[in-house]
């Protein structure tokens, strides 16, 4: 990986640890926060002209018919519930099915296909725990939830230092997601560089993290000093943290800087996706389209004028009265 080499050569060969330890992390964080904010604001400014939730269950209609509040939300609160279930449990992905056509006399069968859901859940929660654990580098004293997370994460209680499950699960899940892309022909067909790049990046981050912790070891206190320096805006570069740390950090920075411009923004996008965020109450509550403009439809008067005689003959009631236009054509 080129990025690994860049960081290694930069720090080892040219002694650019200030660049890689301070300047690049700051730049990456600025790009990350401003980029994400800009993107969210951009989305927020675009209107939802119509109420287009994808309904996934019974609507609210007659009092004696039970509506499906989660999959077909009628109120804003219910819609929030639906969004919550998407964000925390990947509800839509959980529905996944895989149809199979048996060719002779085409017979369609469906098998549950929750692998993608499982890999995705594993990945996202492992990612979350890992990031949360890293707060210990940025806080002094370390708050108890972070300590607890780390303690729980080490439930296997093997190895010295103790094995933290989240990091390994993260590495495993990323590998599984990548294998999926490489091994399923259909997925390989639709995959772009944009899909592989973040996976490789995450793999690199998790792998260097694991290497630091379990194999090569680094000066963890030094790393903490550096991290604390960064967030207190008094950056320091302690001696002897080791190049591996800088590689790890550089990959993280790359991820942060890449994030706002990539598909990784799905993390924010889900909160703006109208098919999941809007309640299905468009018949009960008027929704205004800010750019709605009048259209010139064919008026009844024009219609009656054209068909006047035929309507008279057929005995269809008229607005213009009967005799008036009669006798032409």
């Amino acid at each position, binding site marked *: 990986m080129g990025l690994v080499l860049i960081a290694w050569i930069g720090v080892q060969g040219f002694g650019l640890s200030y660049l890689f330890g301070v300047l690049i992390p700051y730049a990456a964080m600025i790009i990350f926060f401003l980029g994400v904010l800009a993107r969210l604001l951009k*989305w927020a400014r*675009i209107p939802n*002209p*119509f*109420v*287009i939730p*994808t*309904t*996934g*269950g*019974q609507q609210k*209609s*007659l009092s004696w*018919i*039970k509506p*499906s509040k989660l*999959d077909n939300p009628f109120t804003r609160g219910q819609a929030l519930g639906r969004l919550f279930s*998407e964000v925390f449990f990947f509800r*839509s*992905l959980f529905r996944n*099915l895989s*149809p199979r*056509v048996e*060719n002779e006399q*085409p*017979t*369609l069968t*469906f098998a549950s296909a929750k692998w993608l859901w499982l890999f995705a859940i594993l990945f996202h929660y492992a990612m979350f725990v890992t990031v949360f654990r890293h707060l210990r580098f940025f806080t002094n004293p370390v708050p108890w939830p972070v300590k607890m997370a780390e303690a729980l994460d080490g439930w296997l209680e093997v190895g010295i230092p103790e094995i933290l499950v989240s990091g390994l699960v993260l590495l495993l899940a990323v590998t599984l997601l990548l294998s999926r892309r490489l091994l399923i*022909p*259909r997925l390989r*067909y639709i995959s772009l*560089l944009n*899909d592989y790049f973040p996976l490789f990046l995450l793999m690199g981050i998790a792998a260097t993290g694991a290497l630091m912790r379990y194999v090569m070891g680094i000066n963890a206190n030094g790393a903490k000093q550096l991290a604390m320096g960064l967030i207190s805006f008094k950056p320091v570069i302690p001696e002897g943290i080791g190049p591996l740390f800088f590689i790890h950090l550089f990959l993280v920075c790359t991820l942060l800087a890449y994030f706002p411009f990539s*598909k990784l923004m*799905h993390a924010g*996008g*889900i909160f*703006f*996706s*109208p*098919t*999941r965020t809007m309640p299905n109450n468009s*018949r*009960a509550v*008027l*929704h205004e*389209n800010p750019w709605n403009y009048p*259209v010139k*439809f*064919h008026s*009844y008067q024009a*219609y*009656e004028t054209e*068909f006047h005689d*035929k*309507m008279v003959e*057929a*005995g*269809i*009631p008229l607005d213009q009265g009967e005799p008036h236009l009669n006798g032409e054509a």
Partner: protein
Amino acid sequence: MSDNLPEAEELARINLDMPPSGWMDTPVKLQKGMYCHGVQGKNIKALGMPNPRDWLVEDDDWQLPEDWYNIVMEGLRERLHRFRSLQIFMDICVRCGACADKCHFFIGSGDPKNMPVLRAELLRSVYRHDFTRAGRIMGKMVGARKLTKAVIREWWYYFFQCSECRRCSLFCPYGIDTAEITILGRELLNLLGLNIDWIGAAVAKCHHVGNHIGMEPQTFKESIEFLCDDIEEITGVKIEPSINRKGAEILFVTSSGDFYAEPGIFTCMGYLMLFHQLGLDYTWSTYAAEGGNFGFFTSHEVAKLLNAKMYAEAERLKVKFILGGECGHMWRVIHQYMGTMNGPAGFLETPVSPVTGTRFDHAASTKAVHICEFTSDLVHQNKIKLDPSRNDHLNITFHDSCNVARGMGLLDEPRYLIKKACNHFYEMPEETIREQTFCCGSGAGLHAGEDMELRMRGGLPRANAVRTVRDRYDVNTLACICAIDRVAFPALMDYWAPEVGVAGIHELLGNALVMDGESERPLNLRGEELPEKSSPSDTTEEMEGA
């Protein structure tokens, strides 16, 4: 059916292998039977839309306007600012592939560009190229490509191979809705005069004459009267429909499929009988006769233009609310768009059933009630008498129409009505019903004759599920609440699941409906003799929850 439609056995051999070349390097091949005729110049002109001319899909030159590139790019830019859906869906797809095999057109054709993800990439690639920095710099490497005339052809072919059914959107972890992509993609194509004629002609007629088939007012009246004559012959009850009558309480609107062709007309007879039995104060309109809205398959603006007549007519006739018939996309438009497009309808009142007094608060703003909601309420409160044994020769299954299933959630009302009007009801496999329902393969204006192969391929999953219950439970009737279904299914059933007929819910209900003053009814609404009754059973089980 078109002449070159392959035999079912042949069609069923679906090649699911991915092509050796990447999708951007695989030029589109317009395959006969998989597309509709291009829109005629006169039908473009009828609505004052751009670039009216006659053109043939088979031509190399589609006679695009000189400035076609900028028109599309400007159109795309404008829509990215107007539709959050479009911008979000362009930005956040991760190509996880969950949608890929949810599309009936992909399942039935194996064409990778029918995977919803790739259908969207057809547009997304152009978006990346012109609206993102990475795309501009890195191009194909990051999935970006320049818009060319070949891309326009590809768009046309694949945006008219999508029925906007939204099944993919249900399974997408971010709710990315290919219907939005297709709707807006078709909008862009219409800026260049690239509709299909099956839609363009219907829109032109609807705009001018008031319904998709161009039925003039006197003919409309004759059709309804003709159905009333049939009803009198079968039931002995004489019905006087009212048309364009001011001061009626309710404006009834359904789609032209219901008053135009079999088997839709039998459903229409059901409405007429029910309204007569209730003594409902309602009127038809010849001007706003069409509930369906092929404008919705053209552009948001044309959808609004056609839909506007419904409120305009309701206001002119001074009715209190609108009652809508069994139609799929008509209800997507009424439910999700009408109030926003053409409301607020302050001149109407919150719908209240004149028979039961039930207030339909869920329709308090739009003031339009679905006939299945209306009738379910009647049946629930025992306001009509049904003899389900008249439907005992029918083994029924129910097809949820995509639009009311995933764009509204009308799932239990029709089932309740079937169970009250019939004794033998069987569900299809659960992966193919309710919110997971499969499209008839002909939605979004694709139920023409010349694209029969596309329709049969797209309808395969639905038909297959029907065949499963046909073989398992002797199902012989496919019930539905959509006019396009009723037009499209007979051919589909003939092809994949012979011996299964197609009926609307209110046809079944009309057959079961016991009317005041009716004579002995040996015939059903189709004029077919009913089999001798064995043992009439009056009770049907209560509907199950969920």
